[in-house]
């Protein structure tokens, strides 16, 4: 389709090149016939492009929907016939996954870790960012670069020494140890992001607070932190998803005791066990338990989630 339109455009351009002032009578002439095909071709293009767009909707959501539908079917039905509707409404798979495969316990473990690591990350990250952004002191630049440099840094390189550092502090296979590791590896980006956010906030409000006799602490907690709320929400969502979905750190630092495994580890384990037992139903139910809450939360806060997750790359 583009060919035709380009032809029109080149002729038009050629005309303009010939004479700066195009004769008035001639201009509508090439455009009039071009209009009609343009519209129909636009239609063809639209059908084509919308077809591709819809195809990718199926690709992106299809596997997830397939898993959710199958989580309601009997394991015996699923094997060999991947497509089909549940014959009877039973949540047996879900109870199997929740209690027998311990998905419930793993979810709780993940929640507990997150309850410590997420507030910790946000608090420590914004504290460091606030000081870096709003106070001048010797070493300010150095501290900033120290945090910013950490963003480029792959966890995989540090994992072996980290394992033994944690071991020396007897933090291995403990909840607080894992929380600290999550916090430490979320700090670079959190600090970097919040620093640039605090820099955009007007200084006059903090000055007014100081004149009114507020201490530095009070200015931070009662004035600046509330003002930084949009930034905190973005980075909070980013950290929430990043930490909730973390697979590598728990695998390396938290894999000896099965009782303490997190949801991501539990799912990987379930997938391996399913291979031996052929219990597809429980596997799909486990997956559904893990993804439905996240997807619901995402759909409610989709704008914030999209902004929060892409904020990192835009900066």
């Amino acid at each position, binding site marked *: 389709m583009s060919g035709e339109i380009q032809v029109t455009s080149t002729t038009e351009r050629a005309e303009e090149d010939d004479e700066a002032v195009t004769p008035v009578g001639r201009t509508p002439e090439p455009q009039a016939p071009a209009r009609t095909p343009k519209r129909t071709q636009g239609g063809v293009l639209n059908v084509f492009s919308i077809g591709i767009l819809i195809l990718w909707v199926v690709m992106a959501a299809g596997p997830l929907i397939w898993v959710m539908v199958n989580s309601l079917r009997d394991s015996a039905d699923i094997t060999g016939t991947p497509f089909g509707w549940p014959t009877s409404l039973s949540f047996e798979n879900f109870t199997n996954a929740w209690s027998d495969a311990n998905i419930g316990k793993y979810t709780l473990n993940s929640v507990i870790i997150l309850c410590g690591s997420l507030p910790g990350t946000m608090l420590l990250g914004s*504290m460091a960012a606030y000081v870096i952004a709003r106070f001048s002191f010797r070493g300010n630049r150095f501290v900033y670069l120290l945090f910013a440099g950490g963003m*480029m840094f792959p966890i995989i390189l540090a994992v*072996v020494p980290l394992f033994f550092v944690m071991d020396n502090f007897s933090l291995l296979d403990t909840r607080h140890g894992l929380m600290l590791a999550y916090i430490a590896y979320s700090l670079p980006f959190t600090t970097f992001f919040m620093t640039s956010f605090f820099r955009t906030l007007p200084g006059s409000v903090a000055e007014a607070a100081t004149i009114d006799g507020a201490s530095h602490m009070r200015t931070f907690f009662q004035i600046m932190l509330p003002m930084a709320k949009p930034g905190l929400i973005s980075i909070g969502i980013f950290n929430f998803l990043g930490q909730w979905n973390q697979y590598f750190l728990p695998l390396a630092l938290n894999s000896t005791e099965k009782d303490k495994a997190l949801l991501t580890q539990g799912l*990987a384990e379930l997938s391996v066990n399913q291979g031996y037992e052929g219990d597809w139903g429980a596997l799909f139910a486990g997956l559904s338990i893990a993804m439905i809450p996240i997807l619901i939360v995402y759909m409610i806060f989709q704008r914030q989630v999209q902004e929060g997750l892409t904020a990192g790359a835009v900066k």
Partner: protein
Amino acid sequence: MANDVRTVDRKPTGPTPVKDEKRTGLGDYLLFALTLVLPPRYTPERVRYDRRYRTLDKYRFISWFLLVPLIIYAILVISPFFQAFYYSLTDWSGFSSDFNMVGLDNYSRMLEDDDFWASIRNSLLLLVVAPVITLGLGLFFAFMLQAGGRRKKSDAISGVTGAKFYKVVYFFPQVLSVAIIGVVWGAMFDPITGPINELLRTFGLGSLTQSWLANPDIAMFCVLFVMCWMFVGFYVVLFSAAMGSVPKDIYEAALLDGASRPTTFFRVTLPLIWDTVQTGWIYMGIQALDGFAVVHIMTINAGGPGNSTLVTPVYLYKKAFDVGQAGYATAVGVVLLIITMIFSGIMMLLSRRERIEF
């Protein structure tokens, strides 16, 4: 009052703001030092009414706020980073505390390690191909959503109807854990119960059915596909946002000049959002170099069959935690870091061009 929420039991390193003063004795210095570690409420009277108190207060605040984040960060991130370089020169097994310096032996051993080279080959394949496909699809979809719609009279460009819906759905894989994605696609590729083979059978293409992950020739492409699948949505949203910030009148001008949609894309949109594309490319490259979770969860024996899907991070992990060659594993990590840095450097050099302000 939030003044006394935390006590710090270490003397912070912030320099005490003491300049030459008439009556500054040793006792005063001690008082200043004491003030730095005590909560503001317990500031000695004498210090509080000193004229240097304001500076002292500032440094007290700075050091208190930086202390905890910096200690955690230094111990768990900075120090392992530097230790990695050190351990990469040793023959440390990881199980015992004694090891010898072996110089660059680990690195020369890598040169003859076939598994290592297989992993590098696979990682480089991901590094080169995954960003091209992902960013290409991302740009295409984003442009469709932003400018693919029927031309309305009032607007130079308009998105397709339901653009928001597409974006929401495309972003699904991005909010899910890689662990979930690995397991879901492991099931998708299952030769008997997986829907891919079933679809092929339904459409009479039964000859194309595969045991996808068990075929060494195909398994790596499955990994590549899943990596791209995961990230396309992210780039659609990212590029849509970037395209949305391009002023409409530029498109209007292009339309008046008779530019077709492909021309508009390549001559107007792409140059204007090039910065974002470049950042996205580097980001995607780093993600592709990782690829740990997908391979570790989805493929047979984490990197199999054979070593056909082995990527470098998985190899490193196996060496460190399965066979107890921590020294060698860190050396592999150092090589991986070098590759990452070379890649970022090349990308920055290649794509450097004048920034267009709009």
